């Protein structure tokens, strides 16, 4: 008896989940841009994972015979350095490949932190309402009252420059968006019958919040998470560019741009490629985000 009740939902659950994924993929793959974005993103993840195998050189190896060597197809360039070298003779292609690791790490860490913080605060605010809600949401409004980059700059000034502190600062700045989203979703779901039923069945606050309500707010969170992923990469690169993010010689793309700045009129490739890498990454993720929105949330669908 107890065995059959254990098995029944499992057996019913797995094909259900499969068709769920199929419907998702059906809607997602309609959007050609999203599929391209996903493909590029997968390539980036592979590049980051296998950077040591793919990169022709280590990211910090300097060739003292090849400063500011142009890319292979331009006069003076050679296939030895496909995308040329930077002012201290490091291979740009290798640095870009290793840089993919930092950008993806930044995105993943920032989204994880911002999601965790935002979900916790949003759940508490939306579930308990009253003064808890007022206190939390006032603080969120306050964070949003500052231009995001300015707040991140100031936070990094307090914490000290560096990649990790930059990620912390950006998570804090992006976190109110998640909190607002979760709060709104929780308030909408809270009075639904299934929640009331769970409550009557004796579920406690924590169970109601995390197991009953939260899974039904996931769709907008996934979309917001994707957009925050690309935002985080942009902001971290901006901080790196201003000299307050990752510090040289880290091959972070924004930091690479910062150290290339003085050579812009002499060596276009030192500036062009790191920025192009940022643009392609952010664009790919935003394309995926658009596709996810179309597939997951019919209400938000692009007209």
């Amino acid at each position: 008896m107890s065995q059959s009740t254990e098995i029944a939902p499992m057996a019913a659950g797995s094909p259900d989940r499969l068709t769920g994924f199929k419907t998702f993929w059906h809607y997602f793959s309609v959007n050609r841009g999203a599929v391209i974005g996903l493909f590029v993103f997968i390539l980036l993840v592979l590049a980051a994972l296998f950077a040591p195998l793919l990169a022709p050189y280590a990211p910090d190896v300097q060739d003292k015979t090849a400063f500011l060597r142009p890319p292979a197809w331009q006069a003076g360039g050679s296939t030895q350095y496909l995308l040329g070298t930077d002012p201290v003779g490091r291979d740009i292609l290798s640095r870009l490949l290793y840089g993919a690791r930092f950008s993806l790490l930044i995105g993943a860490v920032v989204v994880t932190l911002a999601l965790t913080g935002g979900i916790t605060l949003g759940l508490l605010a939306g579930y308990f309402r009253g003064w808890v809600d007022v206190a939390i949401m006032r603080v969120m409004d306050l964070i949003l009252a500052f231009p995001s980059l300015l707040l991140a700059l100031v936070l990094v000034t307090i914490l000290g420059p560096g990649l990790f502190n930059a990620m912390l600062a950006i998570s804090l700045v992006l976190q109110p968006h998640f909190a607002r989203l979760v709060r709104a979703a929780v308030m909408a779901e809270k009075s639904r019958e299934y929640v009331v039923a769970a409550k009557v069945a004796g579920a406690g606050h924590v169970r109601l919040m995390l197991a009953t309500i939260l899974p039904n707010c996931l769709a907008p969170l996934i979309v917001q998470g994707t957009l925050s992923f690309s935002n985080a990469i942009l902001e971290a690169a901006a901080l790196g560019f201003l000299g307050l993010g990752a510090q040289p010689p880290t091959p972070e793309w924004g930091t690479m741009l910062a150290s290339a700045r003085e050579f812009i009129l002499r060596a276009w490739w030192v500036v062009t490629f790191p920025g192009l890498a940022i643009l392609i990454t952010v664009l790919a993720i935003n394309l995926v985000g658009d596709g996810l929105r179309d597939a997951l949330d019919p209400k938000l669908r692009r007209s």
Partner: protein
Amino acid sequence: MLRYLLHKIALLIPTLVGITICAFAFVRLLPGDPILAMAGEHGVAPARYEELKQQFGYNLPIWEQYARYVGEVATGDFGVSISSKRPVLEEFKTLFPATLELSFFAMIFAMVLGVPAGIFAAVKRGSWFDQSLMGTALVGYSMPIFWWGLLLIIFFSGYLGWTPVSGRIGLQFFFKQITGFMTIDSLLYGKWDAFRSALSHLVLPAIVLGTIPLAVIARQTRSAMLEVLGEDYVRTARAKGLSSARVVGVHALRNALIPVVTTIGLQVGTLLAGAILTETIFAWPGIGKWMVDSIFKRDYVVVQSGLLLIALIVMAVNLIVDVLYAVINPRIRAA
């Protein structure tokens, strides 16, 4: 309407208090001693240290320090810059017009291109123009603007030699500010060459700063327009036999622009954040560059007050947008 306005202002009070707490806390959260931090690399003599401690009130209980700080700010005393020894508010007043001029032209650029492009894309929905516009908008939206600025410098300043690399106006031009807008002031004095110089300095930074708002506005206009074009009254207007241009330009546009106005207002925060990067790239003497420079000079009095002043501006602009929104959309007022 007045009640709505008062209600909106009342809602801002907690944020206002919060902003002052943030600015107040900033100096005290810096690692190490706040006075040593403010004194910078050179440090201070012990006697001077005690004097400063008295002067800034660091010996008082924290809430008294805060009350004192709010009192100072409320009377317009934002402290004195450590590096330039000038009052922060005075520096802000000379630099802010530069940021305002840059943001103003960036916004003009974004609106003049974004609104018509969005309308046209909506009317020709699904056409190659629509698709390529939305693709371009997504690229613009994903753009690291600090890199975009460098690219434009490489091409227009370096390769073509059309525009200067940095600054606001040629060094040979010097005149007393009237409006604080170089482009307008030079015209008021009737100096055409100065005007041309100011304009050529302004073009690239304004394009860079306007890129993301342009993408956002084009997307927003398109979707607002699409929504309105599906409404009954638009169908009625068409059924009455009005020309397509009239239906789109008069009946649909007026209603489609309501959300667009809000979007434009909400871009102010984006603009000021973008100004930090744009001004740094083009050495544009505005408040964004001022903030970054002050962080590197460890001029924390400037950073503290700059943070406060910028947040106040964003808040004020958001209030104005809210009110404007209520003016053009009476339904909001009742809520």
